[in-house]
């Protein structure tokens, strides 16, 4: 039997990309404001012999930059190199919550600063200085139902008042997790 006039709801999956952000309206163009929490998912295992998903809730709690950031860094690390001309240090305090979605739920997530990148709105990546951020640094192996708070440090152009931060656990290249979570590092 043929019926005409279907208004089909089409998945259009082939056109989708990294739409975890889409699900929460979170993207480079609509990054989360300072203090706002973004939910996402990370994987444990490579799919061949293990595979589990874990919920994460991530927020940027505070941002310091310029003299305030340098002062904080100096009190933590001692002498630090002066930022390059027209640049300044930026400190971001990040809260990261991790929770298993099912069983077995025993994977610890190796949270590392390299999983967070600061970039410009045009996509230019900003460097992470090689001296340590203030305590606590955002690094550690986090287990299910734990929250880890810590600082990240970047060197950003003074002229960029609204850099972005994104989280992606695929930093090491072994497993593609995809689905960046986007955050504002400025008020705009």
């Amino acid at each position: 039997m043929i019926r005409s006039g279907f208004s089909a709801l089409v998945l259009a999956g082939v056109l989708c990309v990294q739409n975890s952000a889409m699900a929460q309206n979170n993207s480079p163009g609509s990054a989360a404001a300072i203090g706002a929490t973004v939910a996402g998912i990370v994987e444990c295992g490579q799919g061949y012999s293990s595979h589990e998903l874990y919920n994460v809730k991530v927020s940027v709690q505070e941002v310091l930059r310029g003299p305030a950031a340098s002062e904080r860094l100096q009190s933590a690390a001692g002498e630090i190199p002066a930022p390059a001309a027209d640049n300044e240090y930026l400190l971001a305090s990040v809260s990261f919550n991790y929770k298993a979605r099912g069983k077995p739920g025993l994977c610890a997530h190796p949270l590392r600063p390299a999983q967070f990148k600061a970039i410009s709105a045009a996509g230019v990546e900003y460097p992470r200085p090689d001296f340590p951020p203030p305590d606590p640094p955002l690094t550690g192996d986090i287990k299910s139902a734990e929250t880890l708070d810590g600082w990240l440090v970047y060197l950003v152009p003074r002229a960029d008042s609204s850099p972005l931060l994104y989280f992606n656990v695929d930093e090491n290249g072994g497993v593609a997790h995809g689905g960046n979570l986007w955050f504002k590092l400025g008020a705009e």
Partner: protein
Amino acid sequence: MGIPIVGVVTTAFSNLVISYSGKQGMPGERFAFVPHPITGVPAAKCRAYLEGQDPVTGKPVLDELVSSLTGKLTAEETATGFIERPIPRVVEVQDTEENLTQLFHNNGWTDGMPIVLPTEERVAAMLKGTSHAPDELVGKMQASAPHEAWSYTVEKVAVNAVMAGARPEHFPVILAIASTGAPALFTSTTSFARMAIINGPIRNQIGINSGIGALGPFSQANAVIGRAWTILSMNLCGGGRIGETYMGSQGNNFNYNNLTFGENEEQLPEGWKPLHVQKGYEPGDSVVSVFNGWGITHADQSFGKDFHPQIPRWLQFISPWSPAILLLDPSIIKQLKDSEGFASKEQLIDWIYSNTKVKAGDYWENYYSVQNFTRPSAEKGVEPYASWLKLPKDAEIPQFSRPERITVISVGGETNLFWQAGDFGYLSSASVDDWR
């Protein structure tokens, strides 16, 4: 940074790498291609590949390498920024059902069998099968590493459930499977299959078959839930694209339904726990557990008075790199308990682990996966493999590296002392109740 590179890739992966580099924001990345395969090909022939023509472009491979490494970057290659891809929620189309169905087939959105068109009304009806909001995030899935991982909402899963022919009462199980993030069409050059085993009250509430014919095409719930897993694995992570996100050389017929069935809990003897209880859930919880593997076969054994001595010999068909799953008819389980003294699944598993052996020499020398995946771990000192590597060739080692790599399931209707086994390993479990 700043160091020129060019990828040298075999032709079987040409579409994959071109597509993948584009998705990673590098359309136009430089590659040179050589014939496939190179595994097992003598060095002289591999050298001839490099000195010959690129089978994709027809140009000399060495010339391509030099020009790719020394040529100036194009505007496309130096571009920065974000690549936006549109994600329409609804596509407004007006056509016959036949033409619209064909549209889905032509776009690779289905498994090749007829679908139920996912109209707004049907998707809305499916959404009544759960209390969760349509825009709630369900999971994240990728065809395999390193492909893109896409996330998806309750509504997106509902679209695929409709297409598979599911009813709203099936939807919480489909959501639970989707929440595991395990794609049914896991891509590798081998041809993976998946398995979904359902435990708890949901089986009887929605008619999931765990008895006679449980693994056959006799239950709507088994059929459409398993099928929905395949369809959503195509559409919610871009999987199943031949040559790009699906590279299984032969494919796997199990991918049509993914071996979706219930465990026959009611016929388990006392002391034998159902799978979900083994994994830490309560008996009254409804749970789906997903497995990864390739195939199953049945045991055509002429049993004497004891069953269990046959098992190690039978299981030697499984690669020692792989895990094992035994699908036992409840009638066998009752005999294993009553006549042979196995008081629990765990006791049987421990016995299998202790008595199924492989010679160390055979293990290290004759299995491709052991050589590629296990040996590097052994050389890094990972136990028990590091100790096994030091053993003489005729020493016996366990075929399955840990008891946890062996799963025993009760399934079947007791019409035959029938049992099957396969190389499926447990991945994870998800609560169905959480998605009601």
